[in-house]
């Protein structure tokens, strides 16, 4: 019966061939370091889901942001859990994405024909750091406020255009309600949209090109002619 349903659906949707292409593709013999990409993707999904749930109660306004976070922690059933997962997931994601980059670098997996995979990966790394930077302000506590004050001030030390960058980041000269609102928008709309699009390109390339195998020691010296 189940096979009949699946066959009926697949005759119309044709998803099985995509499934086989993605999940049954040939991969070289690899090790645990090669799971970091999947782990990053999993963490991004977790962050997305918990983030959507946090948005149910969070208010991006200086008057209410802190109280709304306190309400999530104390007033909402399992609010502490959702926020806790989002908090720790954020830290883990930065670590996993970074180590994923290190693995790609040290195994030389960025070389032809995978340069575009590497480039999208670099943008994804920066987008992840951007998520961390913008998300850090949102609880609107002392640590968030001063971390963002310092962070935006550092951006302001860029020669010539530094002050302009600072005013773009803060939405004015001061860290204000405008800063909180734009950090929120960047955190839940701009960066996630960029990340989702780039993950799409990144994974399309992984499936299309396959993953590189672990470099072998006897290949260290290339054979001449």
């Amino acid at each position, binding site marked *: 019966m189940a096979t009949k349903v699946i066959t009926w659906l697949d005759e119309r949707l044709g998803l099985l061939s995509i499934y086989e292409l993605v999940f049954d593709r040939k991969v070289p013999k690899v090790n645990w370091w090669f799971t970091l990409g999947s782990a990053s993707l999993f963490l991004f999904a977790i962050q997305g889901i918990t983030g959507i*749930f946090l948005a149910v*109660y969070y*208010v991006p306004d200086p008057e209410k942001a802190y109280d709304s976070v306190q*309400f999530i922690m104390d*007033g909402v*059933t*399992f609010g502490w859990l*959702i926020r806790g997962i989002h908090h720790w997931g954020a830290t883990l994601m930065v670590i996993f994405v970074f180590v994923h980059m290190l693995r790609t670098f040290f195994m030389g997996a960025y070389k032809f024909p995978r340069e575009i995979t590497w480039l999208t990966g670099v943008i994804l790394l920066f987008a992840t750091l951007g998520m961390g930077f913008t998300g850090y302000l949102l609880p609107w506590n002392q640590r968030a406020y001063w971390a963002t004050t310092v962070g935006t001030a550092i951006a302001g030390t860029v020669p010539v255009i530094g002050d302009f960058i600072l005013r773009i980041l803060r939405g004015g000269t001061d860290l204000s309600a405008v800063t909180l609102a734009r950090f929120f928008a960047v955190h839940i709309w701009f960066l996630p949209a960029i990340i989702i699009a780039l993950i799409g390109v990144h994974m399309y390339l992984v499936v299309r090109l396959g993953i590189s195998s672990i470099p072998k020691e006897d290949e260290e010296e290339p054979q001449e002619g």
Partner: protein
Amino acid sequence: MADSHEVQRRDFVNIVLVGIGSVIGLFIGIPAVAYLLSPAVKVQEEEAWIPLGPLDAYPIDTPTLFSYTRTKINGWEKTVNSYGAYVWRFGEGESDVIVYSNMCTHLSCRVTWEEDRSIYFCPCHDGRFNKEGEVEAGPPPEPLHEYETKVEEGILSIMHMEV
């Protein structure tokens, strides 16, 4: 033999995956649903005895206004509502007291006791109630609401109500 062995292992992996997946799904799904439903199922405690001070402090046969505020907390928002109660002692005894809400039963404007006309007057639509709280004139559909009262050790208290 080798074939059947392999199929068994594949089935085992599938079952374990579905099993672990279901457990994880429950661990995430139940808190997620509880998270969304929580404000809907939490009931705010609204019943409370409000002490109005010593009964003896209120004059006999003159309805006297007592005002108080109640704070409501909805999530991150605090709302302070003020309420008024008219204490009317119609005798010396501890049980000879009726406390009316000053909220007009028509559209919730606040009524005022006017001693010279001996009525509760609502300025919004010229509603009038007599000393017993009954409608004398105007649009109010029912008499003024009475608070539940108690007197303990000479202190008059009313049970707060949301009208």
